[in-house]
């Protein structure tokens, strides 16, 4: 059991990295990776919401949608759960940890439309995971996102001082860099 969980985690973080291998959550990946500290904030917020959403949506699928034969409501109910969860997390964090709220504040509302969160929830169900496996897979997905974001932010801080042809400045060079980073991540395939 533990071995299985560890391999799910490693697969989610490195081999099937959400950003660089499955291409989910590109908008925040490109949008927030220009500064290292905001990348850290976004990474934490996404990981947190992802694990919560993974657990809650698993519960909804198993205890409500499947017994009642309402699987076709999956998309609609999951997105509502994620949207309200993000609101809820925002309120709790604001009340209990103002310092953390200061750091994460602007990123929290953005997470609703981060397709990696909904993607992780849908993949948990699709792969037929149990509760613990779903939580571990979501955690791995979140940490993988965090990891990719930080790597990219580190590279982009260097890229600022580099001489880039004028047509390639900004978004184009960022995407090509992401492509090279994704190539590097392909080296992890075969790890498990």
């Amino acid at each position, binding site marked *: 059991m533990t071995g299985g969980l560890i391999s799910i985690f490693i697969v989610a973080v490195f081999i099937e990295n959400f950003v*660089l*291998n*499955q*291409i*989910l*959550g*590109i*908008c925040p990946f*490109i949008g927030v990776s220009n500064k290292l500290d905001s990348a850290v904030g976004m990474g934490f917020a996404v990981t947190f919401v992802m694990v919560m959403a993974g657990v809650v949506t698993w519960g909804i699928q198993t205890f409500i949608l499947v017994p009642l034969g309402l699987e*076709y*409501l*999956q*998309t*609609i109910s*999951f*997105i*509502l759960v994620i*949207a309200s969860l993000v609101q809820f997390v925002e309120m709790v964090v604001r009340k209990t940890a103002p310092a953390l709220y200061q750091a994460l504040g602007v990123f929290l509302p953005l997470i*609703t*439309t*981060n*397709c990696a969160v*909904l*993607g992780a929830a*849908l*993949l948990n169900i*699709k792969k037929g995971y149990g509760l613990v496996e779903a939580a571990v897979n979501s955690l791995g997905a979140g940490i993988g996102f965090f990891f990719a974001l930080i790597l990219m932010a580190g590279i982009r801080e260097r890229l600022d001082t580099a001489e880039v042809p*004028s*047509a*390639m400045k900004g*978004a*184009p*060079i*960022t*995407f*090509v*860099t*992401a*492509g*090279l980073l*994704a*190539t590097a991540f*392909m080296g992890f395939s075969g790890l498990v």
Partner: protein
Amino acid sequence: MTLMQHLLKGFWKENPIFVIALGLCPALAVSSSLVNAVGMGIAATFVLLGSNIIVSLMRKIVPKKIRIPIFIVIIATFVTIIDKLIAAFSPSLSASLGIFIPLIVVNCVILGRAESFASKNGPMDSIMDALGMGAGFTIALIMIAFFRELLGEGKLFGYAIPFFNSDPALIMIMAPGGFIVFGLLIALKRHMEAKGDAR
């Protein structure tokens, strides 16, 4: 703006992918073959059209404070419809697009158009806007997929192309190829525009 301008602006000048850079995840993830790109483009256009019409018709009765959740529910309804339609009529397309069909819900192009256009304009204008933006999204996907399928598999729409199919670069149909082709295409578009301005 006239109806025609609403329709045409999405094709190139305000292309949702290349210019506004919205909805990138599906654009990069399903553009590994032309068939997937066209399928995704049609699905997204359908959802965009449906949500734009409903949002535009309801724009005067939706309370401002809760408009985003309402828009998301409207969009999710149309996504569920198209998801089931594709699964029923084209199981192979449904299998190859996988979770990217339900993920149309969080495609920012659709919520973006609902929020910035359909909630402020009448149904006729919104239909044109949806068709134009949907076509622009599809065009962008087809452009990316054209290069990826040609270079990565040596095929176009599944038909082998001589010369290219002798030794295809497999990496182009994997994730890195998507990022690189997309980056180079935006650079190309900018370069063309910079040249146009200079003239």
